[in-house]
């Protein structure tokens, strides 16, 4: 089963967005680099797809293609079944309204000279969502309330610099909601927030997902956050532009199969002193992340992988193949030996989800 194939419970629904064999090549001084290399993904309405991986793995590049902000070098980005780059102008505009991008740094994405009210009413008026300034102001209050900025009247006349990071991120989400999006692409949207605030912003996003049926492409380097927000959805793990593991979030977190996913999860400290000190950790063979301009042959994780096998791993690029129901990985050794290759007692094989 590929990442594109639907699991039984979602088989009835058409995906909102699909990336089919999508690549992005940048031409740099060091030569061409494939920031995203032939990835397949899909997001269903009201569902969460988490994209996780270290910095430079291609998450933002993939998200920008999904949002129609960048055109893929090859492959197809489809929204509700239609290739977005084949859309007529009006339809493309509609697509751009249906898919909203929320950035990592709300400070950089909000106009500092606009009040919160102006920030939110501008798109409403521009796109003719409401007829009058009065209706726009009323809608602004509604939206601020929806993102827990209450009482909304206290925020309307403020400027972004007068708000805390968490409040600014809420405003960015409220603005994204002005055009009734079907898909929100949240790119590290909670990374800059304090722990205490992060959970409340995520809870707010979770309500949009459940109550409004908004689909999420949720990008984070923090697997604990992916776990919390995407537990009922899927997670794709990226490494150097490729998806190396894909599956239901509980399986990726509690029973990862790809050596890279396993290394990521093992590396995370736990907020529990006894647990974090006794957590088994396999060391990597190298700490260095290869450059995209000079990728290692075969499996690009091979210079670092604890399961590396000479001749096998540095030969062909491993395909993403099903390892067990719903879960696929791109690893020669795991594909050959199955989960037996992992030999891990500490980790329960099946998540208790």
């Amino acid at each position, binding site marked *: 089963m590929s990442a594109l194939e639907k699991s039984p419970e979602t088989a009835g629904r058409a995906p909102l967005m699909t990336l089919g064999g999508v690549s992005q090549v940048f031409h740099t001084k060091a030569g061409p680099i494939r920031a995203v290399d032939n990835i397949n993904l899909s997001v269903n309405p009201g569902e969460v797809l988490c994209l996780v991986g270290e910095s430079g793995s291609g998450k933002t590049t993939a998200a920008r293609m999904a949002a129609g902000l960048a055109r893929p070098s090859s492959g197809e980005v489809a929204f509700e079944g239609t290739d977005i780059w084949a859309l007529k102008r009006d339809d493309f505009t509609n697509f751009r309204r249906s898919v909203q991008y929320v950035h990592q740094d709300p400070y950089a994405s909000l106009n500092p000279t606009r009040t919160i009210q102006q920030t939110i009413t501008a798109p409403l008026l521009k796109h003719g969502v409401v007829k009058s300034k009065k209706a726009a102001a009323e809608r602004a209050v509604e939206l601020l309330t929806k993102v827990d900025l209450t009482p909304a009247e206290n925020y309307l006349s403020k400027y972004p610099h007068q708000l805390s990071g968490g409040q600014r991120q809420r405003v960015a989400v409220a603005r994204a909601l002005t055009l009734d999006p079907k898909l929100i692409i949240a790119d590290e949207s909670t990374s800059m927030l304090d722990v205490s605030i992060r959970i409340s912003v995520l809870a707010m996003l979770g309500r949009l997902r459940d109550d409004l049926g908004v689909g999420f492409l949720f990008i984070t380097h923090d697997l604990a956050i992916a776990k919390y927000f995407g537990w009922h959805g899927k997670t794709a793990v990226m490494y150097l532009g490729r998806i190396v593991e894909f599956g239901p979030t509980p399986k990726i977190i509690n029973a990862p199969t790809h050596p890279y996913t396993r290394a990521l999860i093992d590396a995370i400290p*736990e*907020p*529990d002193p*006894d647990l974090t000190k006794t957590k088994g950790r396999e060391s990597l063979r190298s700490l260095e992340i290869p450059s995209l301009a000079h990728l290692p042959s075969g499996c690009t994780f091979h210079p670092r992988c604890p399961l590396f096998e000479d001749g096998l791993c540095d030969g062909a690029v491993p395909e993403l193949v099903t390892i067990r129901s719903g879960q696929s990985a791109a690893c020669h050794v795991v594909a050959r030996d199955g989960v037996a290759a992992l030999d891990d007692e500490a980790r329960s094989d099946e998540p208790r989800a």
Partner: protein
Amino acid sequence: MITVTTTSSSTRAKRGGEGKPLLSIRDFKVEYRTGSGATVQAVRGVDLDLFPGESVALVGESGCGKTTLGLGLLRLLPRLGHASGQVTFNRGDGTEIDILGLDGRDLRQFRWRDAAMVFQGAMNAFNPVLKIRAHMHDTMRAHTKFTKQEIEDRAGELLRLVRLEPSRVMDSYPHELSGGMRQRVLIAMSLLLEPEVLILDEPTTALDILTQRSVVDVLHEVRERLGFSMIFISHDLSLAAELADRVATMYAGRIIETGGVRDMFYRPRHPYTLGLIKAVPPIVGDLPDMESIPGGPPSLAALPPGCTFNPRCKYATEECKEEDPPLLPITDEPGDAHEAACIHWKDVHLQREVPSDLGNAS
């Protein structure tokens, strides 16, 4: 001959708060002048002891005064900052040093030989036009009479200790190194003069998870080898769980709870520490119940009356608005040294699943 002292922590230091503290902090305050004669108190009366070999984590939300406290202890505050109170450093040889009274040469000596700091944001700590070799030599020449070769040897030894290849790193400019490598170079540099206290400000923030892991592992290792004491500042509670012997929670410029790492994580008794712990999702296990702390830390210029946490606290009563509670010893559990600044600490209990095979040792 130069060797890295590898005195084990047990001979040089007794862990866990025995004997005389290395660093004793009393009623420590820091004020920042904010223009037109106004000041804000960023640190408001901190008492803290750091014992030999101990690792203390300072945790708390952004703006609670963690960095300010760290900078203040090493007399590294910006010009508009002013520290007061009492900070005593007890050198291994028995001399007592009044840190706030130091100046000139004594202060420079203290800073690298007795205590050193690794700053938040590794890139800013380097001079971008100097190679790592020059950074190492400058630091050593300013504080020792080592020959060039001795400096090379010592720098090489420390770089290897933080798992870097000296031949490659010494000839690099800071921007040529990855974030994790720079952070490890900084740790090596801070240890050049064998300080007894190392203060690390957000040592792994902004690093990728595998890189963060390597820095954490290096810290475990060098501490085991060199036996220094450390204060590390982090808003990442998981890191505190992993690296700290003792944890101190800061809120609005004060320490509001402190105790051993297990007491703090399994039995927090201040609603703020409890709230922070509940807001961190663990990576293993099922989906946990998470809870956030409503609102944000107060502005230092307008602190709420009474307990500064009261507007966000679900345990708050009218009484909490009357006075800011001092740290009170937690008396209903074994052990001492657990204190919380909350009048209702007896009502505060963390309900959580402790893995059954791990939860009973104390």
